[in-house]
């Protein structure tokens, strides 16, 4: 089995540890983990910096500023995501996995992998805004606090990915 050959953590142990991080987040800050919210902060900052007059009339920016007064970059999720970069890097360094590379199935080209990665990211970014959070913020953290929306998110994300898996199987298997 793959997990035994590589030096990855046992998935159930990893799950318990991730659960404890999520529990700590709720205990300390009264909120769950997230990821896409930090990108939203960066986009709002970019829009208000480059085109302040247009941004002020934009409903997306206005809604964000009303909910989060102050500097959008001085927010919980931005600091958390900076931590993710540090934590991921440290783990990769300890495990000897630091390497610049494009990971893809031998059946597809690097170019194809990157095109799909970019397109997938674009869809995920858009969907995470519409769905008010991604796999971390909406599905995982939502499920931990028993939010109905969290469970709907989880089923919609994983259900769709399973439904479409057949059509892009060449990319992965």
């Amino acid at each position, binding site marked *: 089995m793959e997990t035994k050959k590589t030096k990855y953590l046992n998935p159930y142990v990893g799950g318990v540890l991730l659960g404890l991080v999520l529990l700590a987040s709720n205990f300390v800050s009264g909120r769950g983990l997230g990821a896409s919210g930090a990108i939203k902060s960066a986009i709002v900052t970019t829009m208000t910096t480059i085109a302040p007059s247009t941004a002020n009339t934009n409903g997306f920016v206005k809604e964000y500023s009303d909910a989060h007064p102050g500097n959008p970059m001085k927010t919980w999720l931005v600091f958390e995501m900076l931590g993710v970069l540090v934590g991921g890097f440290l783990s990769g360094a300890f495990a000897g996995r630091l390497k610049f590379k494009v990971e893809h199935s031998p059946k597809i080209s690097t170019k194809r992998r990157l095109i799909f990665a970019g397109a997938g990211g674009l869809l995920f970014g858009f969907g995470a805004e519409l769905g008010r959070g991604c796999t971390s913020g909406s599905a995982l953290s939502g499920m931990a606090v028993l939010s109905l929306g969290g469970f709907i998110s989880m089923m919609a994300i994983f259900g769709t990915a399973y439904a479409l898996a057949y059509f892009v199987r060449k*990319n992965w298997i």
Partner: protein
Amino acid sequence: MGPLSVNEIISGNTNLFLAFLIGIGFGFVLEQSGFSSSRKLAGVFYGYDTVVLKVFFTAAITAMLGLLFFSLFGWIDLNLVYVNPTYVTSCIVGGVIMGAGFIMGGFCPGTSFCAASIGKLDAMVFIIGLFLGVFIFGIGYDAWKGMYLANFLGFPKVSSTLGLTDGVFAFLLIIIALAMFWVAEWAEKKFPRGEY
């Protein structure tokens, strides 16, 4: 006692510093579990590697049980913990779009940052895509605002929606998760893949 920041036991700046430490824990566990590899992540959709399912559900159950017990012991006031709102339409449509992005890109936002931190170039391209997607949502906001705000149900708990207590729902979810783990172990034996 908890949540510490909401009860003003710690200051706003301390909260941000702890957010950074929590993020380090988050990124470290994701990378250690193999979430920095898109082929490992996508494996769950083909059965050859189900690490996503195992880690995701074990984490959700651990945190859920932790919160229920902390509440029982009086360590945390769950009324002060953020519960995600439920907007049915945008939740489903957003989730469907995210699912398509997941199977095409092989990452979700959190895992893409984790993978980018160890040098995965495909993850960096995915992140550029994320920024573009959020930007497009932002500039075209008025076009999908109606859908974004439709069918708002408030902040319902899945347990109350199903007419169950939190404890009974948690117990059922654990049973369901154990059944899924059993299927996952079976699938990995049935659809083995070589080294990647």
